[in-house]
């Protein structure tokens, strides 16, 4: 004969569900009634990726590391004024296009990790659904706007900076 559930355990189980029923009635549910009240995501939540355009060198590392190929970058080389007087004008990459297609993005965060110039950031903002799927392609202006929602980086742990 297979093991039968023990009787006290049965009653304990009933007690647990009844206890949660009581807690929900008295203290309210653990869930949030979403459209009416918003949940505050943790500050490191992966909501949307923001672009700090000035830091971007159009190096394409993010686009090449993206598993979904959802980042589109176009740029051209142009001359910038020299750093020192009398120097040669510098050649820099200018960013023409930086799009992330959130219909494809799987929020792995590899682009944020791989960016060597701190141009990409995670923002916990999550309300950007669109009626049309094409509108999920965020261009660099829109990605730049998300920068306002990027939280301050949390303080480093004690000893983290010691060399």
């Amino acid at each position, binding site marked *: 004969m297979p093991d039968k559930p023990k009787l006290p355990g049965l009653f304990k189980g009933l007690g647990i*569900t*009844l206890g*949660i*029923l009581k807690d929900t009635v008295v203290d309210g*549910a653990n869930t949030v009634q979403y459209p009416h009240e918003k949940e505050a995501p943790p500050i490191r939540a992966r909501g949307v990726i923001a672009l700090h355009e000035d830091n971007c060198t159009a190096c394409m590392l993010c686009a090449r590391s993206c598993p979904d190929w959802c980042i589109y970058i176009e740029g051209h080389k142009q001359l910038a004024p020299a750093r020192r007087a009398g120097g040669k004008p510098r050649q820099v990459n200018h960013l023409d296009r930086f799009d992330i297609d959130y219909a494809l993005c799987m929020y792995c965060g590899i682009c944020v990790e791989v960016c060597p110039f701190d141009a990409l950031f995670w923002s916990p903002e999550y309300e950007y659904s669109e009626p049309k799927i094409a509108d999920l392609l965020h261009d660099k202006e829109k990605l730049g706007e998300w920068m306002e929602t990027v939280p301050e980086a949390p303080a480093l742990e004690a000893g983290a900076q010691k060399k």
Partner: protein
Amino acid sequence: MIQFAIEIPYWGQSLLRVLGGLVAVLLPAGTIVYLFLFKMMSFMQSRLGPMEAGPYGSLQLVAEVGKWMQKEDLAPDAADHRIFKMAPLIVLLSTFLLVVIVPFGPDAYFTNFSVGIFLGLAVASVSVLGILIAGWASANKYALLGGLRAAGQLIAYELPMVLAVLGVVIQAGSMNMQEITVAQNTGSWFGLDWFGSPFIVTQFVGFVIFMIAVQAELTQAPFDMPIAESELVSGYMTEYSGFRFLIFFIAEFATAGVFAFIASVLFLGGWGIPFSWFGWDNIDQVPDWMNLVGPLIMFTKMLVLTFIIMWVRFSFPRFREDQLQTFAWKVLIPLALLNTAITAILKVAF
């Protein structure tokens, strides 16, 4: 049905009976679904359940029914179409046949059948036919497995249910639901007659066996092996959609309500309040207003019993198929036989 001062023609009585039957089947079903399936289950999982349709989501059921009604009535190509489409109706039919035996008041009954509970147990097994042919006619391996599991389970748990009822029948000395009710409300324990003698006290083992068997008959968890969704999709309901699925759904919860009605008649004293409170000696002295209060009492008892059914459903994980059968054949049936034998001995002794 309720006897009115004015004479009602036969067709009027029939119409009243049909309307009463619809109310007695659909009202408990709707209440159970909203109160327990939507709300209690959600609360037990620390969430609120439907909140948008109507105040506190009370119109959610209307929305769900509307959704189901407008879905396409699909049937697989390989299905046996006529039988496939008939099956849910057979299941629902057994629910309507079952409610016929339940008395809701001294005169408020559909039919005062002299072997009422016998009829009830007989028509309760009609739903097995519906489920079995639903599983067979779907031409789907999941549906067939689910249908066969359901048949095996319902037959296995029919026995302890019958044997549990036997104890009550022996004690009441009648199979008539009305007389079982009266016997509980006029009885006394050792001269104390302030609370009647509901059979839940003397037949507590029978009550527990009956409720477990009801749980299994309704294929509610932990006895939901026939519709085990993680392995059989939805068992015999797999291929059903639209209003035929709705009928299965209604039948499931309406049968829960009707079985709770029957259990409250058998074990909790039915529509009655202890007759000694008002100085009644037998059913003829019960005044007419009990025909209105009786259904309310029945409804309350039904809610209490379905609360227990649903509470168990939401608390326990599913039995394995072999555990399910072992539990019926090796635990419940011997226990029920023993209960019947002891009841019979005590009945003869006292």
